[in-house]
Each structure stands twice: as C-alpha cells, then as structure tokens.
C-alpha cells in the first residue's frame, strides 16, 4: 500500500486517496478536433516519472498533483493544484502529522 504525501495533510495511506489520472492536461477547448481528441484520450504510459492527479478523498478532499516513479512507485514530490510541475523533486514530507491550526489548513 502506497504512502501518499498529501500537500495539505502529510503522508497518508493509499486507502484514503483516489487517483485522478494524468496531471497538467490543459483543457484546450479551442483546439481542433485532433488536438481535442488528444486532450481527451491520448496518454503516455511512462516508465519513470509520471505527474498525476490524486484526491485525498477520505481526508481533506483536496485534489493535488504528485510526481511518482512508475518503476519504484516512489513519490518524488507532491504539490498543490496550480503550482508548476517541480523540475527538481523537493524532499517528500516525512511521516509528519498535519499541522492543523498552524495556518497550513487547506484554503477554501
């Protein structure tokens, strides 16, 4: 069972999450038919680092993005929606409990 680093709550077991597919797929509604088809249906299946979306479904409920190595299943980074994909993966939050009340709660 994966240990997934929620950027709002810290590391939590996979049971609490739902995968939501590839991250950084722009919703390019102005694209031509081929471009829109690629937006909807064309996906890589990389061996190595993948940027994907997760939702902390049974936790804070937030969607976020994470970099995962599909070979080792190791998480290299997790980051909030709207933040750019990290170039160099920052360290993953280590086993810390979420610091609720320290101004780090998810914003509405």
């Amino acid at each position: 069972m994966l240990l997934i680093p929620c950027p709002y709550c810290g590391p939590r077991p996979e049971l609490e999450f739902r995968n939501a597919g590839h991250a950084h797929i722009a919703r390019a509604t102005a694209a031509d038919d081929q471009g829109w088809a690629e937006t909807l249906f064309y996906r890589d299946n990389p061996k190595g680092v993948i940027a994907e979306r997760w939702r902390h479904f049974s936790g804070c409920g937030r969607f976020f993005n994470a970099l995962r190595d599909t070979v080792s299943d190791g998480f290299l980074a997790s980051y909030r929606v709207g933040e750019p994909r990290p170039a160099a993966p920052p360290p993953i939050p280590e086993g810390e409990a979420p610091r609720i009340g320290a101004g780090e709660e998810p914003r509405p």
Partner: protein
Amino acid sequence: MSGQHRTPRGGRIDRARPIRFTFDGHVYEGCHGDTLASALLAHGVHLVGRSFKYHRPRGFLAAGAEEPNALCTVTRDRARTEPNLRMTQVELYDGLDAASQNSWPARGFDVGAINDLLSPLFAAGFYYKTFMGPRAVGGTTMWAKLFEPVIRRAAGLGRPPTEADPDHYANRFAHCDVLVVGGGPAGLAAALAAARAGRRTMVCDENPEMGGALLTHPAAEVDGRPAAAWAASAVEELRRLGATVLPRTQGFGYYNHNFVALTERLTDHLAHPAAGAPRERLWQVRARHVVLATGATERPLVFPDNDRPGVMLADAARAFLHRWGVKPGTEAVVVTAHDAAYRTALDLHRAGVRIARIVDPRPRPAGPALDAARAAGLPVTAGGTVIGVKGSLRVSAALVARSAGAGATDHEAVPCDLVLMSGGFTPAVHLFSQSRGKLRFDAATQRYLPGDAAQAQSSAGACAGAWGLAAALDGGSAAGAAASGGEALRHAVSGDHPEDGGGTLGTLPHGRDPSRVKAFVDFQNDVTAKDIKLAVREGFKSIEHVKRYTTTGMATDQGKTSNMNALAIAAGALGRTLPEVGLTTFRQPYTPVTFGTLAGAARDELFDPVRRTPIHGWAEARGARFEDVGQWKRAWYFPVAGEDLHAAVAREVRATREVAGIFDASTLGKIEVVGPDAAEFLNRLYVNSWSKLGVGRCRYGLMLNEPGFVMDDGVVGRLALDRFHVTTTTGGAPRVLHHMEDYLQTEFPELRVWLTSVTEQWAVIAVQGPRARAILEPLVEGIDLSSGAFPHMAIREGAICGVPTRLFRVSFTGELGFEVNVPSDHAAAVWDAVWARTEALGGVAYGTESMHVMRAEKGYVIVGQETDGTVTPDDLGLGGMVGRAKPDFVGRRSLSRPDLVAPGRKQLVGLRTEGTAVLEEGAQITPVPDPKRGAHAIGHVTSAYASPTLGVPIALALVENGRALTGQTVYVPMPGGAIPARVVSPVFYDAEGERLHG
C-alpha cells in the same frame, strides 16, 4: 507418558503438564510446549500423510514453517475445520483433534498409492499434455470427461470446511520506527538496539517463543547466560522499554513504502478460547525502517527415495532434540555436505542416538566439526553418497556408497531408522525479494543474498548470509543501531561452534537407472529431479517456464526447501550457471494466510454496508419486496393478498394515475451548491442555462462528462440567488460530487462555490397523481399549493406536519406531482401522515418497479438504463436543452466532435409490439427478421414493460437513425423467432403533458 522417544530433560517443554490429543483417531499424550510434530515424534510416529500426486508415504522433513510434507487437518467442530496446517507449527492443546490428509482408507495402507506405480503417466507437464489430449465425444477433451474427475479425487490436499467460519478476526494498523521481522538472535539484537535508542520498535516471530536458534543451542552462552535465558531476558527488556513483541506472528507480506503485513495467531493454541475472542489479527504496519532477520532454511539432499518417512533435515533433528526434547530416532545415518550437521550428530550422539554413519559427499572434508566427530568415535565416510534407502513406511537402512563421477561404487546397506540430511542453508530472502530488493548471487558460497535494498530496509543474521550466534547478534545489533541512530551493542558468545563450511546443490550421484528412481526436489508437489531434467529436454530454458511446467516451487510452501535444488538441476541440464538461469519470483504471502484474517471485519453485514431509508421500516412492515440499488435497499413493490410483481405493479400504476400514489425517493442524491458564483458553476457543469432560472423555480438538468456523454441527470431547484438544491441519480451521487469538486478545485478555482452532500439529511416523499394536492393540502403550512401560486417545476420552503420542508412540484410519472423533502429524522412521521391521507383518498404506496413503468410510459430516461456512457443529449432527443449560447460547459467542446455529429448515431425511440409478450431488455435489434449470423445489430432494447395504463407492452430502445425510422418495423431476434416491432415516439402516454398541470 509423552512418548518413549522423549528425553528425560531439556527442551522448551513442560513435562509436568501433559496434554492429550488425537491423531487419526488415536489418542496420544504430549507436553505443554509441544507441536503436533514433536509430540508425534516423541511416540515414534514418522508416517503422517501421503504425498500430493503419487500418494507416497511421508514423514516430517523439517521442524518449522518450511515443512512440505506433514500437513494435517485440525477440527474443533464442523465449522472450525482447517486443512493443510503444517504439523510442525500446530501447537498442542488438550483435546486437539488432528487428521492426516490425502490418504484412504488409512495412511499406512492407501489405495491411491497405485499412482506411485503409475508414475510414468504423471511425468512433468502431465496436466498440460492431458489438456491438449485427444478429444472425446461431444467436443470436450479427455481431460474434462475422464481425467479431471479421477485426478481431482485422487490428488490434492485437505478438504475445506463445509460451513461458514464462525470466528472473527481482528485488524490493526500500526506505525513504528523500526519493525524487526524474526525473533532469533539477529532479530532480538536489532530490536534491543532500536528500543534502547528510544525508537518505537516492533518485533515479530512465527513461533510461540522468541529466540530462534538461541533455543536450539543449549550449550551456548550469551553475555554469560544460557542462550535461551538471554533470549527471555531480551524479550522482557523489550517489553519494559515499550516495544511491541509479537510471538505467533508471521510477517507474510512486504509491500510498497515499508508496509508490512503480519498475521498474529491468537487462539489456535488454546484448548478453550474465550467466547468471542478474535482468532487471528492482521497487523498492517508502516515502518520507517524494516530489519529482516528471517534466518535460513536447510536444503534437502536429492537422492533416490529421499522422501521416505524417517528421512529428515539435520537441523530439524537438532530442533526436535533441543527445543522439544525429542529424539527423532534411535539409529541415524547423517548425510551432509555442510559442517553444521556434524554438531547435530554429536548432540544426538550425546543424547543417546546411535550415529551409524556420517556420509559426506565432499571428497576431503576437514575442520573442527569433523575432528570433533571423529574424536567422539563417529564413523565418517568422506567422498560418499547415498543411492537410496530401504523401507517404505519408515526408513530401515541407508544405501551408502562411494562417489565415482556421476555414479557410485561399493554399495552397502547401513541399518538405521533415521536419515538426516543437509545440503547447506539457503538464506530466507523471501521478504527481501518481495520488497523489490535486488538479490545478488554469491558465487563463493553458491547462495543468493540480499543486495541493494529498494526501501528503508536492512537484513541481518542468517538471511543476510551471516552464520553462527555471534555473527547473528552482531549483525542484528548493527542493523538495529543503524536503523535507530543508536549504539551497536556487543554481545559476548561462548559455546557456539559456528562452522559454515560446505554445502551442495542439485542431485547426489547414485548411478542407478534414472527412469526407475525418484529423487525428490519439491516434496509437496511431488516433483523429482527427473521431471526437471525432462522439462529441459522438452525445450524449457527459462526457470520460470520450468517452474510452471513441472510445478516445482508452486505448492503451498512455495518451494522453501526446493527452489535452489531445482534451479541447480535445471542449470546443470542446461549447462549454465545459476545466475544465468535466474531465480523465480518470491510472492506474498510467505506462508498461507486464512481468508478470515484478510477479510477481517469486512464480512456479512459489514462487507458492503446496506443503506436503508428512514421509511424502510414502514415498507418492511407492509410486506414490501425490496431490490438492491447500489448499496440501497429500495421498496420494489407492495404486494397485496398474494399478488405477484405484475399484478402489484398494475394495481399501483392504475391507482396512481387515477387517484394518487406515494413513493419513497429518499435515495436520490442531493447536493447543495452554495455561493455567489453558484449559478455560473452550474452553467459550466450542466448543459442547461441556469442564470435566468428564478428563485423558487426548478429545472431538469443534464450533466455530461468531458467526452460529451450523458453522465447524470436530476432536478435542480433554486432556493436563493446563491443557493441551489441539486438532485442526482441514486447511484450517481458520489460520482457527481467528485466530478463537481474536481472541476471546482482544478478548472474553475476562481468560482466562489461550496458543495455539500445532503443525501442523508433530506428524505424525499414523492406524492404523485390527480389527488396529490388534496393529500398534501391539509398537512402543509405556509405554502400555497394552488396551481397559480405553485406551478409545475417550482420549489417552495415551508413546513409539513410541523417539520421544515423543501417542497418540489415535479413529476417523474407524468401526473400532477410533488416531492416532499423533509429532514431524515422526521421522515417516518411525515410519511405516516401522508400515507394516512393517501389511504383515505383511495391512493397507494408504490415501489421502484411502478416508478420505472410510469416513467417509461412517459418516455423519461433513466441514466444508466437508457444510457451506457456513449449517449449524447441529442441521442436521447434532449438536444434542445443544451445551452448552445453558453461559452463553455463540461462536454460542450466534445458535442462537435466528428463522431458525435456523424449520421447514424443511435437514437432513443419507442417500440410497440403486437400481442402481450414484453421484449427482453438488452435484446438486439435488426432491420430484417432473419439476420445472418454475425450481422450488424442496429440497436438494442433499453427498457421494456407491460404498460398497465395502455394495456399493451411498451419498450424504449436505442436504434441507429431511430427517429427517422418512426412508423417503420424493426425486428428483435429471439430464440423463438424474431419479434417485429414498430418504431414510435418514446412518449407513450399524455404526449401533450396536460396531466402535469392538473
């Protein structure tokens, strides 16, 4: 007396606490601390079962979890019957009732043993060859007709219990800094180092007593104390330091991110488990660091008839002697290619077992162990081999010879009742391998050892290739210290003789006709050296293929004692080295795990929780039949006086259309959408336009996914400028909320909107029919129900029976209708009041079947029934709802995709048939009555009912270009012939919709 082979003293048993138990109907006596294996051996019982395929007599090979032969069924009662338990791990309790397996009529005389004589039929690949075998009459293979029924009866292991498991199983999630798997010297030392450094530490061991090899070396001392006493004090200190110490706990699975699964046996060793006590506990442990201290498994030697009862691993004999005070024989021949068995021979010799011969296949063995054996007067044959044994139900002699190349000379029968063998030790790297660590082949010692770890993990002791108590303690200490940042403790060891010389892989030379002997490699699956060589001759080169073809290593023991020998024999036959041939994959679980443990509490009612509405009890009391809709139980129909479904529905529908009916619609999904941008948010999530929807009005909304297909629908009411009450389909509620949250959080984060599921908060009573207003009028306060004040598709807030209500004027029947939303806690009372009025006016309560029929009469679609994830609004004839002027909504871009505007799409139509037969839902539709086999179907039936209102069968269907086919005839081919159907409008009743506005 606990057996004539019991030593007078020594071992970890309590001779003062006798235990009576039964094996195959015979009553025996054992001691507290015995396993079933040790207790039977104390009585000289070696023959304990028959093998899987050949029904060969079998005895104990090992003393622990790796035992392949000695499987039994333990029965407490009819439901508590567990097969395939390793007798070496079954703890004795008073009244234990165990039975051997796979033998009939008795394990001493077994009819199935004819298989042994027929063994040329059962060579490697037997199953595959038989699968492909000649075809019998009727097209089935000989396999299905003849072989399978016979083989199924003859082969196999124990029988499963026939009743449901009455026990329950616990489950715990745990977190720790250091998890140590294995409670031997390495494991205890690692745990001590971590616990003394103040780390949260857990240590587990499969045995009832921690200590591992410390318990089988009574002459050894650690830190000045006997080894076993040191182990006990280490456990005590660990507990004092707050560590979690788990005996009887198997670490069986190592998963991602240092997640390790353990199973703890809680009551199987007790004569009288407390009522309601959990039988086993699943521990799901997330550790910062894992220390594997899983030890090593001794390898059998491969020689003819090495499976006879009385042929045993040398280290198992050591364990039986020192741990359980049992002499496994009176006269032993020891065959060993490893130094350790010499010490075992010496210990047995001192305990009074005559050592008839030590046979060492190594040409010139040397070293202190050999010297000690010779000094004690034990006869040693160096460069020797064993070419077979005498005796079938129990070994009576070993056929000892001298190796001569691939053959043997100077045969001699050495009488004995025990043959101990040692091919050396294989590190137990199973969990390491499961953790995705890379194994490394050590050519010098011909072993696979843990290489680079893939997770925060280290290996210590014999599983890492270290040998002897001192090395294990040091390795464990170092691993524990490294894992915890603590200090590596030094433990002083004396009295241990950790010689680690030798070892061999593959077969011993025997020079006998290889087609006439059986030298076993995998004892549990009855795979011989000959089978593996045959597989190679037949062209299998990969060890993974050899494994599957011969089934070696595929039994419940996963080849713990056999894999390395099988690999070496395959490598020899291929002329390759071991690493060139590769190693098969180790998979979870390490030992079999009960389904109960894995299921835990998730069984019966808790397996998939049942959701019931507040009105469920009323419906149940009225004799409603229920149907499952997702997790919900919904009232299906309310039979009166023995009515069947058809009669009940006909009555419910007629009464609703003529008077009124009430319906429990509480399962509808409900989401409150609130915020200054709520209308704009709905504009983007539904095809409809919401901006101009007035407060107090409702609209039917259609939701698409991004590819443009209908994913949900429901009525949305506007309670205020910034507040909407959204309803969804019963099954779609969580999916719709997830979908809304996704777009709100990731695509439209600028919108100020909050989403709340209120499905459980609001119960819904649908009141439908010409008298609906008359039913509600006296109950409702503060809402004018007149048509002028409260038109169709409006919503009002007020009270009913003194309870707040959100009252919708909507209809899913085509009749004048209301949906009364009330807080769930009050729903039962409000329902009672509404029902009293309904009944008094001559109305009915109706269920989901009538709801389906009435909506189908009106051509209202049900998402998931008329739609299947490939249906657009236009396909449903709802294209007019799409707010094409809106700049954007989810799915909008896709509605102009080429495939979605192409001609020939399937469209929703109605079908009318002659006669009374109702079409089959899901039936295919063709343009001709007698389509050729494989011809293209132009559509399918989505809904079909007998319409009580019209008195004829009706159906809805999706048909290519269906709307253009109106008035034409299509066909529904069925086994009894094609049924002609006329394409009509999907609205069968009150096409003008006048009844809605009554």
